[in-house]
C-alpha cells in the first residue's frame, strides 16, 4: 500500500467518522428530541396571524370622512415572562401613554395574561414591539377614529373594543361596515423573518357608507346648539336640518356634545340620539296639523273667523291662552300666528275626535318614520277609544301625546313640500351605490299645504310668536312651541319644566330647507319657543340657506 493510498484511506476514515457522528446527531435530534423540538418549532416558527378587516368608513355627502379605521395593535403581556418589570414599565409607560406605576402594577400581576393597551395606534405599537421585551406581545386590530371628534357623534355611534358597533349608525349598519377578519399562516426563519406566508382566509373589508349629512351644516348646527346650551342651560337640546323635498337629513345635532373618540367620558343620556329617541309633548308646534286637517276637510279657511275668549272649558278642564286677553275675534291664520290655544281647540272640536285622530295618524305620528337609525321611538298617540272627555282640550294644542323631533320634522316636511309625507333618510350611498330616495304618499293637497305655509309665515311676521327672527332676503315660515312637561311626582303639568321648540322652513313660497329645534327644559333666560328655539332656527338657517345656494324668496 502506497503512502497515497494510506492517506486516501485516512481521509476516508475521517469522513466516515464525521458521517457517523452526523448520523448519530441526526438520530438524537430527530428521534430522541424530535417531539419537543417539533413543538418548539411550531411555536417559534409557525404562527396563525389574525388579519383584522378594515371597517368601512362613514363619510358625509361631500366625501369628508366622519369615521375611519386605522391599523392598531392590542398590546398584551405575560407577566411571569417579563424578567425586569420595573425596567420594562419605564420603557413602556411613555409609549403606552399610561403612568409608569400603573404599567408596573399590570406587569406585576399574578396572571398569565394582561392587556397593557387596547387598539394602540400602529406607530406607537411598532415602537413598543421594537423594544423586544420578552413577554410583551402585540395583536393587530383596527381602531375606529372619528376625525371630527364631537361632530354628529350621537348619529354615528361608537364601536366597542371587539370592533362591533354599539350605538348609532355603527350599530344599525354593523353588518355592512364590519367586514370579515382573515387568517394567515406564517412560517418564520430563525431570526423571525417570514419565509412562507399562506392566507388561510382572506380578509374582507367592510363597506363604506356615505351619509346625506353635510359636515359644515352639522358643525354650524352643533355650534348653535352649544350656544343655546350656554345661554339657557337646558337639560338637553336637539336640532334637525333636512331637505323637505327628498327627506334627506343634512344635520342632526344633539347637545350636550359627546366626543366620539372618548365615549366613556360622557353619560349614557348624552350618548343618546335625541332626535329619534326623545319623546316629548310638542305643544303649539302641533297646532299646524290641527289646522291642516280642518283645512283639508274644508271645515275652515285661512280667513275663517273665530270668536276667541281668554279661556275655554273642555269637560273638567279649563284651558287658557298664554297671554291674558279679552274676548276677541281671530282668523285661522291669526290663531296659528298668535298660537291661540282656545282657537286651536275650537278648530279641533270642529273636526271631531275621529277625524282629528285620523289626521294625527296620517301625518305619521304614533309610528316610526323609518329612518336608518337605531333606537327610534314611536311616540305615544292615544287612539280615539282612549280619548277622555277633555282629550280634545289637550290634543289639538299638542299636549297629551308624545312625538319625536324627527316625526315632527318629517310631518312639517309634508307641509313644506306640498303635501307629501316622505320617510326621512340619512344614508346616501352604500359602497358607492346610491340608495333610492324613499317614496312618500300624499297626506294633504298642495293647495292646503300652500295655505298652511302662508299662514305659518305669519308666525315670523310682526305680531307672530317668533317675529324677532328674520333672515334678510328670505321669507321664513314656521311655528313656535312651548309645551309643559308632566311632573312625574304629581302627575300634573309642571309650572317650571317646559320644552321649547320651533319648526320652520324657507323660502316660505317654495321651501328647500327645513329646520327643527327642540330645547328640553331651558333653565335660565327664557322658556318660550319663540325666544329659545326660534333664534337658534334663525342662526342655523342664516348659515345654511346661502351655503346651499338657495335663492332668496
Amino acid at each position: 500500500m502506497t503512502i497515497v493510498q494510506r492517506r486516501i484511506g485516512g481521509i476516508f476514515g475521517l469522513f466516515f467518522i464525521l458521517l457517523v457522528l452526523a448520523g448519530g446527531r441526526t438520530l438524537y435530534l430527530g428521534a430522541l428530541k424530535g417531539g419537543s423540538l417539533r413543538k418548539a418549532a411550531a411555536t417559534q416558527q409557525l404562527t396563525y396571524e389574525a388579519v383584522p378587516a378594515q371597517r368601512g368608513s362613514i363619510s358625509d355627502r361631500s366625501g369628508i370622512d366622519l369615521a375611519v379605521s386605522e391599523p392598531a395593535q392590542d398590546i398584551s403581556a405575560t407577566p411571569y415572562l417579563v424578567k425586569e418589570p420595573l425596567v420594562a414599565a419605564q420603557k413602556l409607560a411613555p409609549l403606552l401613554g399610561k403612568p409608569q406605576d400603573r404599567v408596573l402594577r399590570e406587569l406585576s400581576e399574578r396572571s398569565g395574561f394582561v392587556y397593557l393597551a387596547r387598539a394602540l395606534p400602529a406607530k406607537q405599537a411598532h415602537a413598543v414591539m421594537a423594544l423586544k421585551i420578552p413577554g410583551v406581545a402585540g395583536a393587530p386590530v383596527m381602531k375606529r377614529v372619528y376625525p371630527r371628534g364631537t361632530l354628529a357623534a350621537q348619529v354615528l355611534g361608537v364601536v366597542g373594543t371587539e370592533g362591533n358597533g354599539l350605538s348609532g349608525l355603527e350599530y344599525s349598519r354593523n353588518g355592512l361596515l364590519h367586514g370579515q377578519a382573515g387568517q394567515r399562516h406564517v412560517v418564520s426563519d430563525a431570526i423571525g423573518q417570514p419565509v412562507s406566508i399562506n392566507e388561510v382566509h382572506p380578509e374582507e373589508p367592510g363597506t363604506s357608507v356615505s351619509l346625506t349629512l353635510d359636515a359644515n351644516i352639522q358643525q354650524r348646527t352643533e355650534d348653535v346648539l352649544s350656544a343655546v346650551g350656554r345661554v339657557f342651560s337646558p337639560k338637553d337640546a336637539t336640532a334637525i336640518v333636512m331637505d323637505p323635498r327628498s327627506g334627506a337629513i343634512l344635520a342632526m345635532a344633539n347637545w350636550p356634545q359627546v366626543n366620539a373618540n372618548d365615549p366613556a367620558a360622557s353619560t349614557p343620556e348624552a350618548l343618546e340620539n335625541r332626535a329619534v329617541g326623545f319623546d316629548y309633548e310638542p305643544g303649539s308646534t302641533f297646532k299646524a296639523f290641527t289646522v291642516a286637517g280642518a283645512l283639508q276637510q274644508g271645515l275652515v279657511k285661512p280667513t275663517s273667523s273665530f270668536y276667541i275668549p281668554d279661556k275655554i272649558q273642555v269637560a273638567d278642564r279649563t284651558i287658557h291662552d298664554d297671554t291674558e286677553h279679552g274676548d276677541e275675534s281671530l282668523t285661522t291664520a291669526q290663531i296659528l300666528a298668535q298660537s291661540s290655544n282656545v282657537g286651536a281647540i275650537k278648530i279641533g272640536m270642529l273636526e271631531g275626535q275621529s277625524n282629528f285622530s285620523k289626521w294625527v295618524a296620517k301625518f305619521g305620528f304614533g309610528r316610526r318614520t323609518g329612518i336608518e337609525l337605531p333606537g327610534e321611538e314611536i311616540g305615544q298617540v292615544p287612539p280615539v277609544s282612549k280619548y277622555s272627555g277633555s282629550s280634545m282640550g289637550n290634543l289639538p294644542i299638542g299636549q297629551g301625546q308624545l312625538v319625536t323631533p324627527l316625526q315632527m320634522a318629517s310631518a312639517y316636511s309634508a307641509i313644506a313640500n306640498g303635501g307629501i309625507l316622505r320617510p326621512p333618510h340619512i344614508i346616501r350611498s352604500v359602497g358607492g351605490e346610491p340608495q333610492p330616495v324613499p317614496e312618500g304618499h300624499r297626506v294633504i293637497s298642495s293647495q292646503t299645504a300652500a295655505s298652511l305655509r302662508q299662514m305659518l309665515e305669519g308666525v315670523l311676521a310682526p305680531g307672530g310668536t317668533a317675529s324677532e327672527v328674520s333672515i334678510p332676503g328670505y321669507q321664513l315660515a314656521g311655528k313656535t312651541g312651548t309645551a309643559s312637561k308632566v311632573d312625574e311626582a304629581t302627575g300634573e303639568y309642571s309650572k317650571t319644566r317646559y320644552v321649547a321648540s320651533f319648526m320652520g322652513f324657507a323660502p316660505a313660497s317654495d321651501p328647500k330647507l327645513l329646520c327643527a329645534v327642540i330645547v328640553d327644559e331651558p333653565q335660565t333666560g327664557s322658556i318660550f319657543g319663540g325666544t329659545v328655539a326660534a333664534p337658534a332656527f334663525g342662526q342655523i338657517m342664516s348659515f345654511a340657506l346661502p351655503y346651499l345656494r338657495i335663492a332668496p324668496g
Partner: protein
Amino acid sequence: MTPPPAAAAAPAVQPHRPLAPRGPRRVSGPARPARPADGARSRRAAGDAGFALGLISGLEALAQHRLLERLIRGRTWIGIVAFALIGIVTLQLGLLKLNGGIGRALEHEAALQRQNAALSIENSELAAGSHVEARAAQLGMAFVPVGSLRFLSSSSHGDIGKAAAVLSAAARSSGVAGGEQATTPSGESGESSAGAEAQTSPEGETATASSSQATAETSATSGQSGESAAGEAPVSTESSAPASSESTLSESTAPSASAVTGAGGGVQATSGE
C-alpha cells in the same frame, strides 16, 4: 388346473375398498381456454413483470451506456453535480427571497393602510370649518358674521344696460378670451349682472368689477339664463365660486363654509323678480 364349477359359477367377490375421490381427469387434446378473470390477471402480472424487467434492462443499458460511462469517468460529472447543487441552493434562496418579499409586501401594505387612514383623518380635520376659517384669516380674509348677508334688488332695464356696459369694459380691459362669451348672450348675462352692478348704488356696498365678471362669466359659460344664475345661485363677491342654478341640495359639490361666506362676501346679488 380347472377350478371347480361352483367356484367358477360363484360371483366374484370384490374386496371392499372405499371409493377414492374422483380427481380431475387429465384430458388429452388442446388446452381449454382459461376463465377470463384469471386470464386478465395473469396477463397484467405478466405485463407488469415485463415492464419492470424492461425498465431494469433499460436502466442497465443506460448505466452501461458508453456516453454515461464517459461522463462519469470524466471531469464533466463534477461540473454537472456542482451545477445541480448550486441550482438547488439558488432555487431555495430564490424561494426564501420571494417569501421574504411577500412578507415585506404585506408590511408595506399595512404601512400604506396606516398612511391612508392617517391621510383620511388629516383630510377630514383640515376640512373642518374652524380650520378653514383660521386659514382664511391667515390669508387676510374676514369672516362674515352670520346674519349679515344681504340681498339687493335690482331694477329691470337700467341695471341691465349698466351691467352690460361694465361687463364689456371689464372683458376688454382684462383681455379675457371668454369676454365674448360673457357679452354674446347679452340679454341673459346682462340681467344676471344687474344685481351685481346694483350692489354699488343703493346699499353703498362695494363690489369689484372682477367679481361681477366672474358671476357673469359663470352664468354665461354654464349656459344658464342670467336670471336663474343670479336668482338661484348667489355668489360671494370675493370667493367668486362658480354659481349654477342647478346647485341643489342633493349635490355633493357644495363649497366649504368659507367659500360662500368668505371675506367681502357679505353682499350677494339677486334679481328683483
